[in-house]
């Protein structure tokens, strides 16, 4: 592989030097620059959305209304959800895709670099519009991130137009990003890298990208119908004009459920790369991991109405969606069993990426268990729209998706920056996050079972103790993420020099280039690729 690196260094001289200053970042078409911008953007959004969660938890610290009025509280829950989903988790995965997919498949860049620039640079405008709407007369969106009609149409404030416009921009950005990923993977793989030899992170993103292209237009349709219902006199969701508010939910969740998997499939890819690396043992079943991912993606189109069991569906439909939802636990189980079997009789070390990956497996599985409980329609009638649901999706999204993003960041930081991160601080970040995330979300299960509805600014007295514990966990989790910021800045600025392959058990093309990865990598395709890195 050293010959490849040598060649590449020579080629570097033929390239135009990257412009410096602001224009470098504005006009860049380099996948590494764009990847970094995506990651920084998502981290900023993570802090912005997180500070809204802090407002929510501060208000819920005690019963009674203390800090904010209920209308503003609703804006906080709504915008917190929108920012975390569309601003934090999704751009973080796109950032990882940008950085890693070309390096993992031995490509010089993404296939469509100018579109790549555009798909990033429209995002800040989308979120500027969304955040600006909070300062409008009447406030920002206050109807939940799920924007159920008619609360989001007839009964919403005028900032809804800004909300719709910003969701449209986010959707365009995601679709462009997804097209780029698919075109890159289909056309630019290194010689010898057949589909069934691709790294699993690449596989999981490949499938995710198809999900994105399938469902983001559905979201665009839903917000457009909200716009025309509110401002142009249509009645898609208004029974008085022949429409149906429940139809909104069908359309929304037809987008929304695959969206859930958009936010977790890339995590599966990350964890499937990290566990074999630190267990120093091949992944137990590469092919079954690919098939399980595809099966989950396929099933994700058949389960949307499990979000809507209380809307009054026919029994037959309730049974169909219950069975399909339960079925998803089979391929998901296959993945978890695979990770455990990969660890079994390995030679494990516990660097920070591995710690986050292991926490992911356990906490995501707990989220999976509550998901299975929620699938059971008769019991879902009790769980639905309570804190049990809030606990469930935060387990899969925070200690699931976000933990996997943290794992990925620690795993590849040496490659990105050329320095080792501070392992002690990183471990502090891990343990602080692990403990606080459970103090934050685990008691929510009990609040929900005992009957606390979600999205309420005030609650009856029997929930007071639980909410106090949850809020303390929330503040601790929020503060813990500042340690992460510190570790990353420290690592970017300096630190122990990282070798090309800082992890003993890691494998894959990204570790064949020096650290930090040069501005241009793989100008000529690498040779000698014969099996997926997870298989070693």
């Amino acid at each position, binding site marked *: 592989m050293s010959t490849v690196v040598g060649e590449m260094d020579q080629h570097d001289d033929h390239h135009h030097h990257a412009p410096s200053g602001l224009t470098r970042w504005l006009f860049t078409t380099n996948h590494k620059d764009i990847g970094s911008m995506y990651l920084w953007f998502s981290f900023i959004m993570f802090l912005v959305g997180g500070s809204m969660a802090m407002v929510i938890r501060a208000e819920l610290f005690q019963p009674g209304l203390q800090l904010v009025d209920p209308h503003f509280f609703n804006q906080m829950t709504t915008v917190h959800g929108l920012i975390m989903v569309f601003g934090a988790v999704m751009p973080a995965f796109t950032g990882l895709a940008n950085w890693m997919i070309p390096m993992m498949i031995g490509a010089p860049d993404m296939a469509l670099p100018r579109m790549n620039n555009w798909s990033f640079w429209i995002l800040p405008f989308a979120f500027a519009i969304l955040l600006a709407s909070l300062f409008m007369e009447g406030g920002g969106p206050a109807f939940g991130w799920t924007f159920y009609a008619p609360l989001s149409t007839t009964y919403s404030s005028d900032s809804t137009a800004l909300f719709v416009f910003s969701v449209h921009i986010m959707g365009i950005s995601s679709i462009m990003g997804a097209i780029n990923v698919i075109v890159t993977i289909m056309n630019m793989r290194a010689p010898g890298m057949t589909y069934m030899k691709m790294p699993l992170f690449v596989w999981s993103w490949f499938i995710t990208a198809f999900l994105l292209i399938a469902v983001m237009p559905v979201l665009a349709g839903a917000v457009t119908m909200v716009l025309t219902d509110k401002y142009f006199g249509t009645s898609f969701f208004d029974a008085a004009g022949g429409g149906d508010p429940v139809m909104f939910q069908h359309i929304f969740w037809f987008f929304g459920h695959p969206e859930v998997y958009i936010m977790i499939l890339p995590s599966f890819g990350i964890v499937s790369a990290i566990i074999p690396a630190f267990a120093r043992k091949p992944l137990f079943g590469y092919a079954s991991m690919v098939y399980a991912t595809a099966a989950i993606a396929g099933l994700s189109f058949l389960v949307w109405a499990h979000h809507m069991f209380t809307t009054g569906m026919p029994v037959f439909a309730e049974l169909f969606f219950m069975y399909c939802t*339960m079925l998803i636990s089979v391929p998901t189980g296959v993945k978890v069993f695979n990770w455990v079997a990969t660890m079994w009789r390995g030679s494990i070390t516990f660097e920070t990426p591995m710690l986050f990956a292991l926490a992911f497996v356990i906490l995501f599985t707990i989220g999976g268990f509550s998901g299975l409980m929620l699938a059971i329609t008769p019991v879902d009638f009790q769980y639905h729209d309570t804190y049990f649901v809030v606990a469930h999706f935060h387990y899969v999204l925070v200690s699931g998706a976000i933990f996997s993003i943290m794992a990925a960041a620690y795993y590849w930081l040496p490659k990105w920056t050329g320095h080792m991160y501070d392992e002690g601080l990183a471990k502090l970040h891990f343990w602080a996050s692990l403990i606080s995330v459970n103090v934050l979300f685990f008691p929510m299960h009990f609040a929900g*079972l005992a009957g606390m509805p979600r999205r309420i600014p005030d609650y009856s007295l029997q929930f007071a103790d639980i909410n106090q514990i949850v809020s303390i966990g929330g503040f601790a989790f929020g503060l813990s993420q500042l340690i992460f910021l510190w570790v990353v800045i420290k690592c970017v600025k300096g630190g122990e020099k990282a070798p090309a392959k800082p992890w003993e058990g890691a494998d894959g093309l990204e570790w064949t280039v020096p650290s930090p990865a040069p501005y241009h990598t793989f100008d000529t395709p690498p040779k000698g690729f014969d099996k997926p890195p997870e298989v070693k």
Partner: protein
Amino acid sequence: MSIKLITALTAMSPIAVQAQSQFNLTQGVTDISQRVYDLHMTIFYICCVIGVIVFGAMFWSMIRHRKSKGRKPATFHESVKVEIAWTVVPFLILIGMAIPATSTLIAMEDSSEADVTILVTGSQWKWHYKYFENDVEFFSLLATQRQQIENKLEKGENYLLEVDRPLVIPTDRKVRFLITSDDVIHSWWVPDFAVKKDANPGFINESWTQVNEPGIYRGQCAELCGKDHGFMPVVVIAKEPAEYDAWIAEQEAAQRQAKEEEQRLLAMSMDMDELMDLGEQVYLGNCAACHQGNGEGVPGVFPALKGSPMALNDMEAHIDIVVNGKSGTSMQAFGNQLSLRELAAVITYERNAWGNDTGETVQASDVNEFMNQ
């Protein structure tokens, strides 16, 4: 030893029972809610067993198979047998879960042959109950005082879970609920009955319950329905059938009498002070949630009444909007929610409070005349 254990367990059990209500799903007071609870616990235990096995293997591996213990990694991977096993076994477990779930669900969705039918209508932010077999209907509003919510008074035992007029149903009879909404989507939920059903505007949903024990059961709106979503509780009192029959007859008589009384009172006019006193009460109970106690509303969402041209000048339009509401907005029609006296008083109040000093009074007869136009 075993006696000690049993004693200890018995001593613990009251704690366990008490703790159950705070940390776990209620068993409720209907056969259905009991079945739902059993299903919940069954699936929870199955998840626990799977969790112990999977996490047990993981922790075993994390503790034993460490590099620091000098372990050399094995190289095994791919085993069709193992992979088939861990696909088929979970599938069989799922079938085991699906069977009781299916039968419970089918029982829950059979609302046929009900003895009592009640129309439940949600609106921002209250519930309305109408008995089909009897001429009884009423609104049910949050009864917790504003000062408790604002932390100016100590919070009561049933803080946010108390209403002015609870729904009353008979025990041991099948009660069917027809659920709908006047504005946005709400969701009518009583955990003790395991009934949660969305109230969709323009559509009617069905649900039912048959309560075994008399008592007071409390729930809340479960679907985000705007600003005061957290402040629209559900309270249901279940009475023995005989008591219920007496109650409903009494209500029927009382409501008939109130209507007659209202017609009689039309001839009488109230003076400004009376109107303002009653008006303020009605305003705080029905209008202040949106238009605010100071009449200034919430800019961009709920219009101000203080200084509004309608409240200062156009009395006809003012009566119209209070009686008939304004379609396409959150402004409800209060014509069927308040008595003529209350309507007259609240309109008078709005025209004279917060510096809207028009000096005009509106009488019940004015409102009656408007409604009969």
